[in-house]
Each structure stands twice: as structure tokens, then as C-alpha cells.
């Protein structure tokens, strides 16, 4: 088990390193620099470049960056908010995206799991069919369509909720973004739960349990629910990763000051330290989640850790 854990950990670290390297190279291939202002004379520009260490060679810069990264220092922003440390920017923008994403995840998966489970219990009924139609729609639509829809109906026409994010009413103005994150999640989770529950209910061990006279609540909670929820947790974990990082479009529509919006701004401003830091955060969340899942699987399923395949 220790060997398996160590192997997964090493692979994750190497993956993280490689993604930082790739993003670093890609960003440095990008045309333009943070100091593109035409008013700057060549001398001034050279001065700025040397001040930020941008006149050094690419490998040298990469190692400096890596060394600072290990100390938790992302560097400073160039053009978006001059000389502000990026960790401060992250501190200002991360919480809102993460809170909204997390709340949406909890709401979405609770709705999804319960609806999916009941729809599996009432398989082939009218409710089940209606539910499968709704889930297909929820899965098919991009989440920003929900945002547009809510923003127009609830925000503009009826005026019940603020159209844009207001710091004075954080809860009230979070309702629409959370809903538009949560609905697609609910659809995906609902469908997955239903499919899992149906296949568990048709499995041999549930039939066996039934033949032993186990029925009602005991069959539901002890046999069906537990076995069908395990795989659902995997799906929820992967969806959570996507949600924590915020959505660029939804944050733009509701003008939420989250990291998605920050990334959009940083990209247009050519502020590549910020872009790099955000990319690192995304990659870190993603890889950490994968590692956690692998470890969980290794604990649950001995076959995986023996063969060493994740």
C-alpha cells in the first residue's frame, strides 16, 4: 500500500511540474509583452524588463520561477494591478469562486442524487421518463445558457434578484449564479445515480438479498443505496474540480469578481504571471483531486493497488 501511495504521489508531482513547464513555455511564446505601451522609449522598456528579470534567458527565468513557486511566491502582477503580489490577488478572488462552486456542488448533487434515486425506484413510470427528458436537457445545455435565462427572466423582467453581483447583498445576488452552476451538476449526477441504482437493483446480490426476505428500508439503505452511491462520488469529485475553478462565462455574465473573471482579464492584459499562477492553481486542484481519488480507490479496491494501475 505504501509503495502504491508513493508511486501515485511521485507521478502527481511530476505531472504538476510538467504542466507548469508547458504553460511557462506557451506563455513565453505568446506575442507581446506586459509592457507594450507605445509611450515607453526603448531605454525605459529595457529598464522595466531588467527590473522584473525579464531580460534573463528563458531557462534561467524558469528556474527562478520554480524556486519562488516552492516558497509559495507567485511573483507580482505586471499590468493588471502593478506590483501587487499575486498571492494577494488570489486571496481576493479565490474565495468567492470556491464558495459559489462548493455551494452549487452541494445543492446540485443533493438534488441530483435524490431525484436520480427515486427515478430509479420508479423505473419506467411517467415520472422516470419525465426525469430522463429533463436530465438530457440539463446535460446538453451549456451552463451559460442557464445564466442568460435567469439573468433575463428573474433579473431583468421581474427584477426579483439583482442582475449583477453586489457586495452589499452577497447571498441574494449569489442565487442566480449558484442555480446556473447547480442545474447542470444536478442533471449529470441525477442520470449517473439513476443508472447506477438501476444496475445495482438488477444485480445478483440484491436479488439474493430479496430471496432471503430482506425488504423495505433495510434493502434500500443497506444494499442498494450504499453500492450505487460509491461510483457517484467519483463523478461528483470530478465535477467539483470544474466548479471550484469558477466559470469564465458565468462570472462574466453576473460580473462576479472570481478567478474566472480574473483569468479573462489577465489574458487580455497580457499579464502572464497572473495567468501562470491561475493555471498552476487549476492544475493543482485537478491533480490533487485525481490523487485523492486514486488513493481512495486503492483503499476501497485491493485489485487496483496490487496491479498498480490507477
Amino acid at each position, binding site marked *: 500500500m505504501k509503495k502504491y501511495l508513493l508511486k501515485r504521489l511521485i*507521478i502527481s508531482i*511530476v*505531472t*504538476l511540474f*510538467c*504542466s507548469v513547464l*508547458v*504553460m511557462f513555455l*506557451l*506563455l513565453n*511564446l*505568446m*506575442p507581446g509583452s506586459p509592457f507594450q505601451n507605445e509611450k515607453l522609449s526603448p531605454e525605459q522598456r529595457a529598464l522595466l524588463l531588467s527590473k522584473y528579470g525579464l531580460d534573463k534567458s528563458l531557462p534561467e527565468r524558469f528556474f527562478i520561477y520554480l524556486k519562488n513557486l516552492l516558497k509559495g511566491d507567485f511573483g507580482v502582477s505586471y499590468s493588471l494591478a502593478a506590483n501587487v503580489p499575486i498571492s494577494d490577488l488570489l486571496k481576493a478572488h479565490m474565495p468567492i469562486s470556491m464558495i459559489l462552486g462548493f455551494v452549487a456542488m452541494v445543492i446540485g448533487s443533493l438534488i441530483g442524487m435524490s431525484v436520480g434515486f427515486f427515478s430509479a425506484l420508479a423505473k419506467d413510470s411517467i415520472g422516470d421518463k419525465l426525469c430522463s427528458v429533463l436530465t*438530457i*436537457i440539463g*446535460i*446538453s*445545455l*451549456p451552463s*451559460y*445558457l442557464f445564466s*442568460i435565462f435567469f439573468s*433575463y427572466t428573474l433579473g*431583468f*423582467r421581474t427584477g426579483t434578484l439583482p442582475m449583477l453581483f453586489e457586495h452589499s447583498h452577497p447571498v441574494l445576488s449569489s442565487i442566480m449564479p449558484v442555480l446556473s452552476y447547480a442545474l447542470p451538476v444536478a442533471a449529470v449526477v441525477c442520470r449517473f445515480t439513476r*443508472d447506477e441504482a*438501476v444496475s445495482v437493483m438488477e444485480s445478483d446480490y440484491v436479488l439474493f438479498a430479496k430471496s432471503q426476505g430482506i425488504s423495505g428500508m433495510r434493502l434500500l439503505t443497506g444494499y442498494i443505496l450504499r453500492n450505487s452511491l460509491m461510483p457517484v462520488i467519483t463523478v461528483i469529485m470530478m465535477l467539483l474540480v470544474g466548479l471550484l*475553478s469558477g466559470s*469564465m*462565462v458565468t462570472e*462574466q*455574465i453576473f460580473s462576479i469578481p472570481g478567478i474566472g473573471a480574473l*483569468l*479573462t482579464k489577465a*489574458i*487580455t492584459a497580457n499579464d502572464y504571471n497572473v*495567468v501562470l499562477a*491561475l*493555471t498552476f492553481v*487549476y*492544475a493543482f486542484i*485537478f*491533480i490533487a483531486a*485525481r490523487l485523492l481519488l486514486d488513493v481512495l480507490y486503492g483503499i476501497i479496491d485491493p485489485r487496483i493497488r496490487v496491479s498498480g494501475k490507477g
Partner: protein
Amino acid sequence: MSEQTKYTPTEADFQFAKRDAEAETDTVFAGESSGRAAFKAFCSKKRNIIAVVILLLLILLSIIVPYLTGHRYDAQDLDAANLAPKIPLLADDSETVYLTSGTTVRNSYTDLGLENVSYLFGTDHLGRDLFSRCWQGLRVSLLVALAATVINFLIGINYCMISGYFGGKTDMIMQRIVEIAVSIPSLVVVTLMMLVLKPGVGTIILALMITGWMDMSIIARTHTLRVKDQEYILAARTQGAGKIRIIYKEILPNIFGSLLTQAMVNIPSAIFMETFLSFVGLGLPMGSCSLGSLISSGFDNCLLHPYKLVPPVIILVLLMIACNLISDGLRDALDPAHKR
């Protein structure tokens, strides 16, 4: 224990014991081919048929309509800007405008003296016909999605059949590459690609290709591993088939169905990515249009003229739902064990 009896074969041992039509027909495989069975299973569900019809209809309209309408999709007519949708025989073509100061009803056609003209979906702020633009946009979006999916399909299956079949160190290295590629958020890569290269259809396809091939190759690898150790591969190998031959002639046909399902999933996600890019403002250059740019410019105007947003959104929704239904149907039809 003592002496082994020696048997000398006679001529009769090499004669067919029974040779007639019955013995020569392979009754096991003369039944239904798996492809036809899957096709039948696919067609037996009503919603699959509906989805295919919707998809074909959309494709057909996107090909034909831009040639049929009297208005070119990029022709501007500033005198006929912001006209509401008007269907010739229906009388009411006025629009209700909601302003902060109150609600007014107005008819741009009579205001501008254009009673004889009609625009099915209305016109945008430059007087371009939204009906032609919607179908032209659908055409561009479909083109991007299809091209990206086909390229992903080719890269993904080749990469992972090779990695899965050869195994060992090759597999290890190739899989680490995929793992790293997957863990870099695709939205970021696409956005950067669009910044580095000149915006255009080709760039979008390239960006979608760079981010999309991993999903396909992960699926391809799982199925290759599943198929790899089966008896017919062993049989092919004992008969001296080379690695390339085994990969393309034995493995590929057997995993093709599952890959096709994944490809159908890929199309909606490519369309989503395209609309997303246009929304963030990194999509196609000005002038050309796609579903994404129509939705995004419709959103900019949606408070005053919501009619501009409705047609492209409905087309997008129909397209996405049709693709998802087809991929579901394909999965159920190709994989009987996976029946829901």
C-alpha cells in the same frame, strides 16, 4: 507400459467424413452480424430516430438556407436595423420594448416605412438578416465541431491503440504524456492558443484538436486493453500477423463502436467550446459568424431586443440535445451489457 502400438495412417483418414452443404455452412456466424444487430437496436427506439431526424434537418438547413434566402448573411442594411421578427402572413410584427422608464410597444417596420419587407428572425444592429446568419452560423459551428472531432478521433485511436497494444515502457511513457496533457485545464490552453495564433476557423479547430484528443485516447486505450488479450488476437498472432496488422485489422474494428459513441459526445463539447470562445471574445474574426458569436452578440442586446437571442439559442439547444441523444442511443445499441 511395454511397447507402444504404432499406428500407420491410411488414405481413408484424410477423407471428409461428411461433406455436404449442411456441414459447410457456418450456422453460428450465419446469423445476424453485430453491426446490423446494433443498427436494429438503435432504430427500435423512437427517440433515436427523432434525434437523427433533427440532426439531419439542421445539417440540411444549414447547407441550403444560406443560398435560398434573398438576404446574404453578411449584407448590411443600416436602414433596416433592429427589425423584429416578421412572418409574412401573421399580422402582428410589433415588438414590446421594456425600458426602465416603462414598457412601450412599437413596430419598427411601420416606423421605418418597410411594410413590404419581412425578416423571419428579424435583423441585427447592422441590419443583417438574422435568418441567414443563424443558418450560416450553424454551418460554421458544425464545420468546426466535425473537423475537430474527426481529427481527435484519428489522433486518439492511433495514439492509444499503439500505446495499449505495445504495453510496457512505451505504454508507460505515452500514458504519462496523456496524463499531463489531461491535467492542464483545456479552457486555458484553448484561450492561449487563440491569443498566440491569428483568430479564424483553422485556429479554433487546431485549439480544439490540441485539447480534445486525450479524451478519445483514454477511451481507446481502455478498450484496446480489454480486447488485447482475447483469443482472436492470439489466433492472429500465432498465424504470424504483424503488430500493425493486428492493431488495424483485429483491434480497430472491435473497438470502433465504443469510439464512435465517444465521438458523438465530442461533437457537442466542441460546439460548446466554440460558443464559449466567441462569448469570451476570442472566437472568429469580425464579419464571419458562428452560433457562439450570434449568441454572444444577442446577449449584448438581449435586454432591449431579446428576439435576437432566441433563434440561435434554440438552434444550439436542438443541436446539443440531438447529438447527446444519438450518442446515448449508440452506446445502448452497441453495448448490450450496458442496457439501461
